[in-house]
């Protein structure tokens, strides 16, 4: 028994990834979701990020799993800041976890680069000089969906999203741009997978289009059931329910659906081509938008390290602000509140051979920023 305990202790010491070779100039702490429901997103962000920093001798990365739980994320962040002494934090997928971790971390003088979550609070009143969002502000893709709905001539949309802060942001974002009227507006239960009741309401409402924000498994269920319902109305939504990881599970039910995204595999620039082919050869699967966000986060970090040391916080921050890197999205810059100004595309789900994937059909919103810039005092 004693022997077992010693072995276990030794194993635990070995597996805690705090051993570094010397010479690293910058330590990154990545907190992301790697187990349980929703882990596909975290794994993609991690893989994208690690691909970007691969072979870079100056960066060391500690990766920890937050299990999608805010309390665990907070503990991990504390440990990384206090005992691992990281310089930069990144990785969080979910807005509620970001709200629990980011404010404390940036107030302790750490940089936080968000590869996904972009809650409105951190873009507006709660913005911070050390917080950068490399993905989008939460409302962005939904605003583009609203814009697309106008151009497609939709007059009467039925909209639905889960009953939680990001869901409310989503419907607000869509309504901010959509000029038609609403045939119905529903908040579903978070985590709900069966939409028979909602689909019956859509059928009865006489809507000419449906907008939905149902990330992860929720969207898979909705799309399958909607296509089986025989309701012949166009559907539009943000890319979260149509990313590469999920399309396979939705199957042909997703074919032809328009969705909005700041990234797509077919954006034509050298950085993106390299990213897509490198990602495929490294991991043996097509990248998703989450992977592209992780990758851009890594590239942004490297770009800032060229001219500044992370210890010189002001200089490092200025370098980050320049966003002087070749983004997979092409044109990319930060607005005053450190959130991206970028094009948001409208994509369509198509079949390439046997693989379901997306292709760009138009630019939904050009050089789009967010409405919270004016609230940010920085």
């Amino acid at each position, binding site marked *: 028994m004693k022997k077992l305990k010693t072995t276990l202790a030794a194993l635990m010491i070995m597996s805690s990834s705090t051993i570094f070779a010397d010479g690293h100039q910058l330590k990154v702490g990545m907190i992301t979701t*790697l*187990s*349980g*429901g929703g*882990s*596909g997103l975290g*794994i993609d962000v991690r893989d994208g990020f690690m691909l970007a920093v691969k072979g870079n001798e100056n960066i060391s990365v500690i990766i920890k799993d937050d299990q999608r739980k805010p309390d665990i994320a907070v503990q991990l962040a504390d440990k990384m800041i206090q005992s691992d002494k990281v310089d930069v934090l990144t990785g969080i997928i979910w807005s509620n976890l970001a709200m629990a971790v980011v404010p404390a971390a940036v107030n302790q003088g750490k940089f936080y680069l968000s590869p996904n979550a972009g809650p409105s609070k951190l873009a507006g009143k709660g913005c911070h000089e050390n917080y950068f969002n490399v993905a989008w502000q939460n409302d962005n893709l939904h605003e583009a969906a609203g814009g697309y709905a106008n151009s497609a001539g939709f007059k009467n949309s039925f909209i639905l999203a889960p*009953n939680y802060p990001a869901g409310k942001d989503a419907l607000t974002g869509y309504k901010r741009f959509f000029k038609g009227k609403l045939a119905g*507006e*529903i*908040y*579903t*239960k978070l*985590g709900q*997978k*069966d939409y*028979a*009741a909602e689909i*019956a*309401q859509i*059928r*009865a409402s006489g809507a000419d289009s449906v907008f939905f924000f149902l990330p992860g*498994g929720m969207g*898979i*269920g909705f799309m*399958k*059931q909607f296509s*089986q*319902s*025989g309701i012949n109305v166009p559907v539009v939504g943000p890319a979260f329910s149509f990313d590469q*990881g*999920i399309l*396979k*599970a*939705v*199957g042909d*039910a997703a074919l032809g659906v328009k969705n909005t995204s700041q990234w797509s595999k077919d954006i034509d620039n050298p950085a993106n081509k390299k990213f897509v082919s490198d990602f495929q050869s490294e991991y043996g699967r097509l990248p998703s938008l989450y992977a592209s966000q992780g990758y851009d986060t890594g590239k942004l970090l490297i770009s800032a390290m060229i001219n500044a040391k992370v210890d010189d916080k002001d200089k490092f921050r200025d370098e980050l602000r320049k966003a002087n890197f070749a983004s997979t999205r092409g044109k990319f810059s930060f607005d005053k509140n450190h959130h991206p100004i970028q094009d948001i595309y409208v994509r369509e789900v198509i079949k390439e051979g046997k693989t379901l994937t997306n292709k760009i059909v138009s630019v939904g919103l050009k050089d789009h920023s967010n409405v919270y810039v004016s609230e940010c005092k920085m």
Partner: protein
Amino acid sequence: MTSILFIEQLLNGIQFGTMLFLMSAGLTLIFGVMGLINLAHGSFYMIGAFCAALVAGITGSFWLALGASLCGAAIAGVLIEILIIRRLYRRDHLDQVLATFALILLLSEGVRWYFGAFPLYLSIPDSLNGTVPIFSEIIYSKYRLFIILMGFLIAVGLYLLITKTRLGIRIRAGQNDREMISALGVDISKLYTVVFALGAALAGLSGAMIGAIQSVEVGMGEPILILAFVVIVIGGIGSIKGAFVGSILVGVTDTLGRVFLPDLLKIFMQPAEATAIGSSIGSMLIYILMALILITKPSGLFGKS
């Protein structure tokens, strides 16, 4: 609100209920016969769905996949019962909860390790795709009707099994007096394994049937598990009849509540507020129902006090 929409939603509620019944029947049997609180029941739901997705991916046949979900979950049930669960019957409920909770984590991460973190594809067969008119006015999904039908068939099957067969007699005897039945020469440990496997198989089947219209992913069983516990508490722990009535009650209350509460609140509220408050109360409704039933009947509708 029209009567057509109402009937359609009622059917949706019943369909939800029958699926809950498949989950809660096993849960209540296992608790009734062995006195075991099995938190890992949701994992069999997941195992069934993954087995189905695997077989459907290889053979392309939905029906073989359904069979695979039954067998896969039952085999997993037998193995887990013999290796782990068997040691827990004599322990108190806290130990059982801890051990079966650990099983959830092990099984979830095991499945994720083997199948990966991305949801799998499982779809319904073409013969059940689309809709069918009922009384010429109501357009209803064929597949959901199929789920309702399967649920009722299994309910009848379970009723016959419990009331008419030797195994059923033993199960009932086990529920009444565990020690006496083993003193009478019944191989109690075999009976336990069979009951556990039966419960696991039902959960697996429901996982596959629901996975086909929702998503097959790690952690899919836990939200259903919570509802299944609500059902067996409402119906009375150990009672199959209670599980059936409880399931339909929970299914219908939940569906009708979240659809019609916002409309109802719109009569005396702003539409935006009514939507937000209505959907919040809608998702609480089954717990309110549970509280009300427990106040009037503390041991559930069909439970023995």
